């Protein structure tokens, strides 16, 4: 599904170059569930946006579904995001003036699906996140957990094969967070590849594999079940000096 080779991404912050990603090599099989961990500023969001074709690497190669992303035009990347990828964000990113149904409908409106098809899919997607009774509510009439479930419905409504979640439970209480994670797991069980960025070990432990990023480098790879038990997760395993 995903292959990364020597991906580098540097951007300027206050005149200083920041090496967000340095020589990232990674391979993700279809249907895998990956968690990306790391302290803030470690480059994990940059990696996620690179995977989502929103950010372009400065160098290196990224193959998504057999196609090399660097060679694709903006329009082709738009098509990939539309049909292949679903995004879930920490801050939900719902359009405040639109109802739950309209938010879920949004990607389909711009993809040009017929109104009847859209209505069917909206109902199915909202039903799958148990929000059929909130269909005409605006985001400000919904709880945090409900908002993220709307966002989740929006992410899957175009039936993507890859879901990218950036701290999906970061703004939620434990119960709502667990609901979201259960839903994500269920989608993964149905065959969707899932990449979750998180700093929370209880989120990461659900993943098949966990990648730990520090300062743009992958410092550690470990199975999800080992995350909670691992002390000093963000320190490189063979490090001779403890980080300052």
């Amino acid at each position, binding site marked *: 599904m995903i292959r990364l080779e020597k991906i580098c991404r540097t951007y300027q912050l206050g005149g200083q170059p920041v090496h967000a990603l340095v020589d990232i090599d990674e391979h993700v099989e279809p249907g895998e569930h990956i968690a990306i961990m790391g302290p803030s500023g470690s480059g994990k969001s940059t990696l996620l946006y690179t995977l989502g074709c*929103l950010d372009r690497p400065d160098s290196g190669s990224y193959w998504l579904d057999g196609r090399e992303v660097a060679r694709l035009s903006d*329009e082709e990347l*738009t*098509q990939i995001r*539309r049909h292949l990828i679903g*995004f879930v964000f920490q801050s939900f990113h719902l359009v*405040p003036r639109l109802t739950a149904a*309209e938010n879920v409908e949004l*990607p389909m409106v*711009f993809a040009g699906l017929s109104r009847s098809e859209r209505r069917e899919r909206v109902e199915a997607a909202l039903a799958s996140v148990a929000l059929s009774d909130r269909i005409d509510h605006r985001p400000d009439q919904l709880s945090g957990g409900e908002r993220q479930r709307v966002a989740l419905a929006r992410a899957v409504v175009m039936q993507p094969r890859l879901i990218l979640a950036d701290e999906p439970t970061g703004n939620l209480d434990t119960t709502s967070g667990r609901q979201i994670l259960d839903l994500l797991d269920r989608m993964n069980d149905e065959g969707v590849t899932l990449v979750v960025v998180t700093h929370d070990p209880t989120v990461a432990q659900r993943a098949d594999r966990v990648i730990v990023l520090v300062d743009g480098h992958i410092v550690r790879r470990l199975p999800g079940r080992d995350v909670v038990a691992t002390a000093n997760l963000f320190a490189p395993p063979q490090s001779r000096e403890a980080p300052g």
Partner: protein
Amino acid sequence: MTLADLFRFAIGSLGGHRLRTALSLLGMAIGVAAVVALTALGEGARRYVIDQFASIGTNLLIVVPGKTETTGIPGMVPGTANDITLQDAEAVARQIPEVDKVAPLVVGTEDVSYGARRRQVPVVGSTQEFEEVRKLSVVRGEFLPAADMERGRSVAVLGQKVAQEIFLGEEPVGKIVRIGGWRMRVIGVLAPRGVQLGMNVDDMVLVPVGTAMKMFDRRSLFRIFVQVRATADLEQAKGKVIRLFKERHDGEEDITVLTQDAVVSTFSQILGALTLAVGAIAAISLTVAGIGIMNVMLVAVSERTREIGLLRAVGVGRRQVLAVFLTEAALLSAAGGLLGLAVGWTAIEILVQVFPALPASPPPWAVGAALALSFGVGLLFGWLPARRAARLDPVLALASR
């Protein structure tokens, strides 16, 4: 994405900021209303002037003795140019089928007196036809008699002002006035009319043409007014009049035939240009409204940066983002344009109710231009914000606060 979906989405986001939408709509509406109302006023003024001329009669030919071009062959005996005569006028009336009425005109100045009051006024000699040709009417008594032209009866019709000044409220009809050395019976008083073709109708005296010719000892006419049956026949009649005179005057073309067309079209052109200028000035306010729309759209783009980031993330293309914001700007300005049209039109309707004499109505070209311009201005000034929205970096847009 279908056009209907695009419109629905754009209307939805405009509806999200009612006050801001309403204010920029208002700006555009004022601009369009100004264009519509001002051009309507200009057009009204133009039509008013044309109507004034038409009230004199647009189907009027005026025969003037002499040719205004430089003619004549050196060595020819001078003074052979014939005057225009009553017989000429009668010939025009008899021999040219397009001609409806002919009014000969003799003009002089004389003292008019009644009792001790005396007033020097223009004395115009003509016939009964003069009443219709010049659209005159009498308020009291009657107009000049329909006697044959050469018999000079001693009757006079007084202009409104002359009657007032000389008679001071006394009934003039039936009284005898002295005009120069002549005693004339007043048979009528003209309705007030004001200045027409450079002549103050209120301050003159009308007498039969034969009387005037005797009074001023003239054998020739000052003018012949020829009223043609249909305006469409004007040019044809003009040609026939010239040919007839040439025939009667030994092959010499010694008259000039004037039409009012030239005068009317000059006035019309001047006022048309004025309307255009006023409209163009009003159109500047459309530009100001366009800048207002640009401002609103720029604010909308920066406020909705996160939304734009999200749209890009869920697979909305740059061109679609551009289309969304351009559509919003265009809808805003087009709606403002329609509103302005309604306001401007209403204002003109009210004005016409108050001043019925002014035939003001917005010319179709101005309505079309104002609407097209408002729409175009919206697109033009919406372009920059829309392009900014389309070019946003999705990652930065998503992260913005």
